[in-house]
């Protein structure tokens, strides 16, 4: 037997019972108190994300360029982790790319009541970017989605465009031949070319 095998045995120091006044002896233990809390925050996107959001309004996807290695980060964060330096140049990447990997989500999520399961949540790398991000893939049956599948962005109608990442409704197949993924453990391209997309 181990030293402490029974979680119901109270440890020394916790074994004392609390004695209550007789009038309260039968009162039920309070198991929870509800204390709603709300704090308002003003979120600031920062320089790179601002530029990215402005680009989205013009149906342009922007990425940050690492000043040392040339890696292109999309979506941009204003910093290159591979050099530890602030990025100063932004470039437009394509609104086409490929699926690195994906899942088929079969449970609804509160923040997106518009998404009806099952839907495909995929890691999409735009051509010209070294990195990608999780995005919705639609216009295809979930069981037909493939790693390496070529996709293109489906934008909101021009008159509905805002400074928002939500301008891309989803990505859909282009019908081009799949990209050959060389090392299945690695994602993204170490340089800013449309790597993997040959």
């Amino acid at each position, binding site marked *: 037997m181990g030293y402490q095998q029974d979680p119901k045995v109270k440890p020394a120091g916790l074994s004392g019972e609390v004695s209550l006044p007789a009038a309260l002896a039968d009162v039920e233990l309070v198991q929870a108190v509800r204390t709603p*809390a709300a704090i308002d925050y003003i979120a*600031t996107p920062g320089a790179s994300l601002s530029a990215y959001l402005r680009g989205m309004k013009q149906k342009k996807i922007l990425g940050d360029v690492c000043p040392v290695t040339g890696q292109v980060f999309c979506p941009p964060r*204003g910093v290159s982790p591979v050099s530890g330096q602030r990025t100063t140049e932004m470039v437009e990447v394509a609104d086409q790319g490929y699926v690195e990997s994906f899942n088929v989500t079969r449970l609804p999520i509160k923040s997106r009541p518009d998404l009806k399961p099952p839907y495909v949540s995929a890691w999409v790398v735009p051509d010209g970017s070294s990195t990608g991000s999780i995005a919705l893939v639609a216009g295809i049956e979930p069981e037909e989605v493939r790693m390496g599948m070529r996709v293109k962005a489906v934008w909101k109608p021009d008159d509905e465009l805002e400074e928002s990442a939500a301008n891309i409704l989803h990505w859909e197949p282009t019908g081009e031949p799949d990209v050959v993924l060389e090392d299945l453990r690695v994602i993204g391209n170490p340089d800013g070319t449309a790597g993997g997309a040959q």
Partner: protein
Amino acid sequence: MRDIAVVASMQRQEPSIDNESEVEYMVPLMHGVKESIGITQADVGFTCSGSSDFIAGQAFSFVMTVDGANPVPPISESHVEMDGAWALYEAWVKMQMGEVDIALIYGYSKSSGGSLRDVLATQMDPYYVAPLWPDAFAIEALAARQMIESGKVSLERLAEVASRSREHAANNPHAVRTAQKSVADIMAESPIMDPLRPSDIPASADGGCALILAAGDRAKELCERPAWIKGIDHRTDAHTLGVRDLTTSMSARIAGEKAGVGNDKVDFAELYAPFTTSEVLLTDALGLGDDTVINPSGGTLGAHTMMASGLIRIAEAAQRITNGDGDRAVATAGSGPNLQQNLVCVLEGE
């Protein structure tokens, strides 16, 4: 103990940084402080940071900032949900084991995005106190009232602290409250949380600080006059209001004794004292006398960046030693309501 020194630091503090994200404004400091002494991340054996999700309004907020530490290839790294001064403490401990010679430390926050007074209310006892949303100024006003009524301090003395802090802040390019006010001017201010007046409360800022620690000969190579850490310790008081005597600071007193503040003359002290009352509490607990210049930078009454102010106190004290402005300094960092936690660091030049 192994000899470890502050060899470089960089900071930025502004009333609000509107156009850059935390990582965007921190990278120039994190990269810049290394560049200033000719090292790269490859020379850094340990990296440690301090920040707060509640101030950022985002869970795992520090994950966005670690990119600025150049973690490709991977780095030996840690994070405390505390002021950067405790990140420095963690790094100092790590260096004591003799396996790391250089450490990068940073702390930051952008509190302008949320009402800090409300955010800090969530730090109180969640069952008895926080549901009442006691604002941070109100909590300190309780201590101020007690200090005044017990005869420990007068409103004039607090006004002197505030006036002198403004005077010192005028010489600090990073300070955000630099307008000069006489003691009489401050005495004439209407309280915003009686008895606290506008000049008694911290000058809230967005910003951060990055700092390099180096050990032994490495420190001497990197800096002409390193600021050696001769003692460092931190302690906490009780949290429950009413359990503590709010007119004294046991935590600062013990930490000060352990760090050896009283072993020799202190030329100047950079105290984490968000309120004028906190400064009185700390000078008393640390036994600092008239021969010590208090907060030559203007202190947190000149600029207060949550999660970085403590680290900035150490940076300010170290910089003055490196500049030859003095030989022995004390820096403190604090956390929690009524300075519940205090860290004390003694720095010396050779």
